């Protein structure tokens, strides 16, 4: 029993990362009608920026001297993470405007190709700039051996709680934007009916860039959280992307709540299925795929997505 609870709690941390990236994928999908496969890499770039700004040797990169009189004085890890999240958002907007803006509804294949090309480019930039070996990112939350609360004899680590608090705040902000602002309303209108939104004067190109910006920020947050738990390495977000794609497919591409719940389910499947079947942890990706295929067979529009209506 304790073992089961422990496995569930362990899965919860990864769940927060997958949820954050899954929401990022869902938001940019809602804006553009396309999956951005470079989503994880854009976030990873943000993660490296955060580390660079927090490291003494590289702090000049971010102009830390502006905020501090000491040359080479690093930012606190939290501040550099927040700055990196903002930079990633701006970068994502710039990439969208530069590379994706000329796509209309009739060119899905080209948009997909270009997001794959972008994934490869960003990945190459990261590898050449920071190398491929893992780097210690630092702790965003206390993660010593005693930093946990006990839940029925199992350990719920502060890191897990902290990661969820951050992800919930971030998703809460996105939800507020969508439900309380004029831009958010037009964003939902665009998702609902692209043809009609143009007819009320909405400019899809603007919202597509905003969508990419929000997802760039979320992806950078996901990368920083993931890195703070393990190491920052060049393949970190590629693995995460696969699980998060499974999560959005599960939750439905247009549902933010679905993306979060999908993230939790995939993470639990990833720890529980290999754990109970006695598979090596490297096989956990198979577990995610099993869940994914099962859902695709029975509910191809996802657990929370809108079932497409056949109009007559």
């Amino acid at each position, binding site marked *: 029993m304790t073992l089961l609870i422990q496995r569930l709690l362990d899965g919860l941390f990864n769940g927060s990362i997958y949820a954050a990236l899954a929401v990022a994928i869902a938001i940019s999908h809602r804006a553009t009608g396309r999956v951005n496969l470079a989503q994880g890499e854009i976030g990873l770039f943000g993660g490296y920026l955060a580390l660079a700004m927090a490291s003494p040797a590289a702090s000049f990169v971010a102009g830390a001297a502006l905020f501090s009189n000491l040359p080479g004085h690093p930012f606190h890890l939290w501040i550099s993470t927040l700055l990196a999240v903002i930079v990633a958002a701006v970068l994502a907007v710039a990439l969208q405007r530069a590379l994706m803006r000329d796509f209309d509804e009739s060119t899905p294949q080209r948009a997909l190709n270009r997001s794959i090309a972008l994934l490869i480019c960003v990945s190459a930039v990261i590898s050449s700039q920071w190398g491929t070996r893992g780097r210690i990112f630092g702790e965003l939350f206390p993660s010593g051996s005693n930093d946990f609360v006990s839940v029925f004899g199992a350990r719920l680590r502060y890191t897990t709680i902290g990661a969820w608090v951050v992800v919930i705040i971030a998703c809460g902000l996105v939800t507020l934007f969508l439900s309380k602002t004029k831009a958010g309303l037009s964003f939902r*209108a665009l998702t609902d009916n692209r043809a009609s939104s143009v*007819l009320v*004067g909405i400019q899809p190109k603007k919202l597509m860039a905003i969508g990419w910006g929000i997802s760039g920020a979320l992806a950078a947050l996901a990368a920083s959280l993931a890195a703070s738990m393990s190491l920052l390495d060049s393949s970190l977000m590629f693995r995460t992307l696969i699980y998060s794609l499974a999560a959005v497919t599960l939750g439905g591409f247009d549902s933010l709540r679905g993306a979060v719940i999908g993230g939790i389910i995939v993470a639990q499947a990833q720890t529980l299925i290999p754990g109970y079947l006695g598979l090596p942890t490297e096989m956990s990706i198979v577990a995610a795929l099993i869940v994914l295929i099962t859902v695709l067979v029975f509910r191809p529009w996802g657990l929370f997505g809108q079932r497409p209506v056949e109009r007559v």
Partner: protein
Amino acid sequence: MSNQVLSCENVTASYGAIQALHGVNLEVNEGEIVVVLGANGAGKTTTLRAICNMVATEGTVMLNGRDISKADTADIVNAGVAHVPQGRGTFAALTVLENLEVGAYTRTDDEVQSDIEMWFEKYPVLGERRTQAAGSLSGGEQQMLAVARAAMSRPTMMLLDEPSLGLAPLIIEDLFQTFAQLNKEQGTSMLLVEQNANLALEIADRGYLLETGEITGSGSAEELRNDPAVQAAYLGA
């Protein structure tokens, strides 16, 4: 001569290799309701889509003296055109209230809320269901919502694509009353495309006949009503 709000000069439109309009000429003057009568497939929808630059077009479309043939659709809406598309085009997942709010997307004045209340008074069903998803409304209610949403932008020119399609006669009458009222009270010019000639000619000032992508006739509402060819084709006489 009265002020011209909208004109199409020799407008052609095509879907890929298929040409749907072969040089359409029409005009709408300030405060007029103009109807375009045409059978299924005549090119009524395409004409309205061409005005909003939603289909590949050639020729000249003028709005209040400005050439909008090459302008973006969103830009044209900003310039005062509201388009109620065939099949309503409401935002099914948004609430009734949100549909009206988003209809005022181009507006920056502070009378949006009072306009919304005005529509809820005019159509109490919409008011009662303000927090419900538009997709849950009946066909007639959705058409009312579509018209109200279009009017929320305070357009100078309204394009109405077969608003009577699939609605019960009483509801159609109510709807056409609204058009006449909007036209009278707010001076909104209207281009109405219809197969239902009876009611359309009742509220219209003038009309055109559209057949296979070409204008084949025109006249005052009175003239068209008395035209034997129109009676045979559209009035079931």
